[in-house]
């Protein structure tokens, strides 16, 4: 819904409290909750309609899953192919093992151009690594060009917890912010600006246009990178993406290593499933593809920064690696009863909602309280799996990560195999328990019979009789955990006298 980068809303870098504490703000703010509810329910209904329009949705979903799985299982080969094809097309490829290295590379590239400002199209990878802050520290000003981000930036504010990052601002407030602040940042707001959305959008258009027209360096992410051709793809709505991709002389794209698809043809799957899953459109307003540089059209210099930052560690986990299939459509957020109540901030990462609950603890490890609590920020209702266009079995990964938190065991961190200690008796366990209570013990999170069924199947043997059998086509049921989640939950709940919220106030 957020206008630019079709897909997930972007949130600021880690908030530190564990899951349920961070949710309090959203829960206690009725306006925010109302808006969030309205947004998720609207987009949910629209998505269902957009998906129903294509009779082969199940086949597209299966193909998307297989293409991504195949790519991940041969990722070394495809990474080398990307390097080769992008280089052959005139691009320059850089490799960044972690966030710091990626930030250093980008800052260095901007400095080489002699520029001190860049225009940015919103991207989750650059938010994940905290690029804007890193550039700021180097004296480089990064202008986010998405309308919602502009409202937030001018309002000296943080994106709110929700699908549309600026939804906590109503039109009157936006008018006031524009009138007051735009002159500080560049072109002032027009005289007599009213609060109609069209006029506000016009004011933003004029204000940002000045920055686009003079920009010499653009920074983007990418939705897809095609290995065989070296093509990058950006899917968006507002057109600020096109501005950043075509007007500057230098373009720097920071892209996670999991964004690769093998062939040009594979886009036929994702360009059908992504817009329908994301903004519930047949097609988003603008999609740009580019292959290296083109003579006299667009940037003369193109840099691709391939980012690992925990992805190869995630790949090492047989169950967890499916999270790398994610195409960041945000459909799982919009159907999640926990997200709807908790809001995006509660997840303590740029990746909110169900995907955040399985991705962040894998990218960052489960050492912190927030990351240990995230796998519990779910009622395992299964709605996220049902809507996921690449069939990520989020509940399966959640259960797997819960086991890891509770029992410890071997994991890979920064390429090294390490053995995690069980969380039992530690702060992480208490944080996890509070998250579990929050997500699990409230009625709203558990409603609808069908979802309840898909939840309980997690604790059943691999073969499912009756209607549940339909699931087994696209999934392997996980074995019953050594300590079933519910037992664990009851045990820890018992230990704490059944009052997790008290424990949270520390």
């Amino acid at each position: 819904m957020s206008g630019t980068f079709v897909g997930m809303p972007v949130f600021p870098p880690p908030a530190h409290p564990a899951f349920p504490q961070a949710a309090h703000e959203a829960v206690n703010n009725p306006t925010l909750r109302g808006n969030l509810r309205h947004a998720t329910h609207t987009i949910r209904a629209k998505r269902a309609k957009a998906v129903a329009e294509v009779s082969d949705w199940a086949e597209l979903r299966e193909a998307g899953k297989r293409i991504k799985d195949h790519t991940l299982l041969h990722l070394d080969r495809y990474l080398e192919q990307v390097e080769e094809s992008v280089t052959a097309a005139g691009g320059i490829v850089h490799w960044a093992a972690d966030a710091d290295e990626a930030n250093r590379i980008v800052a260095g590239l901007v400095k080489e151009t002699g520029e001190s400002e860049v225009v940015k199209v919103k991207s989750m990878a650059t938010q994940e690594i905290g690029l804007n802050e890193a550039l700021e520290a180097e004296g480089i000003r990064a202008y986010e060009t998405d309308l919602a981000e502009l409202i937030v930036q001018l309002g000296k504010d943080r994106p709110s917890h929700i699908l549309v990052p600026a939804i906590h601002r109503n039109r009157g407030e936006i008018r006031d912010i524009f009138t007051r602040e735009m002159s500080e940042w560049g072109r002032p707001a027009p005289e007599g600006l009213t609060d109609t959305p069209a006029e506000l959008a016009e004011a933003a258009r004029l204000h940002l246009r000045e920055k686009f027209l003079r920009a010499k360096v653009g920074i983007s992410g990418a939705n897809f990178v095609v290995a065989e051709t070296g093509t990058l793809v950006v899917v968006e709505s507002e057109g600020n993406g096109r501005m950043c991709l075509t007007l500057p002389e230098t373009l720097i794209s920071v892209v996670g290593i999991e964004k690769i698809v093998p062939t040009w043809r594979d886009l036929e799957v994702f360009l059908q499933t992504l817009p329908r899953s994301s903004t519930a459109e047949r097609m988003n307003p603008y999609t740009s593809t580019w292959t290296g540089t083109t003579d006299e059209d667009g940037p003369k210099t193109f840099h691709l920064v391939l980012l690992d930052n925990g992805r190869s560690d995630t790949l090492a986990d047989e169950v967890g690696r499916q999270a790398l299939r994610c195409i960041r459509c945000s459909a799982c957020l919009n159907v999640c009863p926990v997200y709807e109540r908790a809001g995006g901030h509660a997840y303590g990462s740029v990746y909110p909602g169900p995907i955040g609950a399985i991705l962040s603890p894998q990218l960052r490890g489960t050492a912190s309280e927030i990351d240990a609590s995230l796998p519990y920020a779910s009622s395992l209702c299964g709605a996220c799996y049902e809507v996921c266009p690449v069939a990520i079995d989020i509940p399966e990964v959640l259960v797997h990560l819960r086991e890891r938190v509770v029992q410890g065991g071997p994991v890979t961190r920064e390429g090294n195999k390490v053995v995690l200690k069980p969380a039992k008796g530690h702060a992480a366990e208490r944080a996890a328990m509070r998250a579990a209570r929050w997500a699990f013990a409230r009625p709203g999170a558990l409603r609808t019979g069908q979802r309840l069924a898909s939840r309980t199947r997690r604790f059943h043997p691999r073969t499912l009789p009756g209607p549940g059998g339909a699931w087994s086509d696209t999934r392997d049921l996980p074995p019953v955990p050594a300590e079933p989640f519910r037992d664990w939950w009851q045990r820890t709940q018992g230990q704490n006298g059944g009052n997790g919220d008290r424990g949270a106030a520390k």
Partner: protein
Amino acid sequence: MSSRERILGRVRRALAAAPQDDMPFEQAFSRDYLREHGERGVEQTVDLLAENLADYRAIVHRCTAADLAATIAGMLAARGSKTVVVPTGLDPGWLAEAETEQVPDRAESTPQELDRVDSVVTACAVAIAETGTIVLDGGPDQGRRRITLVPDHHICVVRVPDQVVSSVPQALERLDPARPLTWISGPSATSDIELDRVEGVHGPRTLEVVLVDGQASTEVTT
């Protein structure tokens, strides 16, 4: 060790235990999904394109090849455009009746200069009926990417039926990945202010698509 080696090493170790199959990608799975949705004749496909373009708030015109110049001239006049950017390979006949001053698409033009131009007229590479999408590939009759981005009014001519396909898979078959592509489905839009959809933030706020009938494929190739 370079970061390249480090990352590739980590990836290889991560996959060491994974089942190795050397089956070529295209044999590894079957593409069971449809090449297009539903069965339509040529005319119905063009109708669907018109319908879906309009559904995403593009303004759709239909005319014959003989009327094209008059149609375009009428659109520019109705808009009150004083200047129009023209790709170098555009059929000059298309603008023969327009009184609007023509600005050629040139490498030297600055974005600021383009910002002062009222309209742009281009052809397209392919149009997709099921999604109401037009795709530009930077060919001589479409010009540089920025000319369809900075001016506020874009007139795009689609030669029907030969430039129209039903579906996304069919469109990708026709497109050359080496060229920079812009897929356009309606004018740009945002819902960032109280979830109200507003047309046009940064791209052209008015997109007019002319479906021109009965014109044989032109000699413009890329």
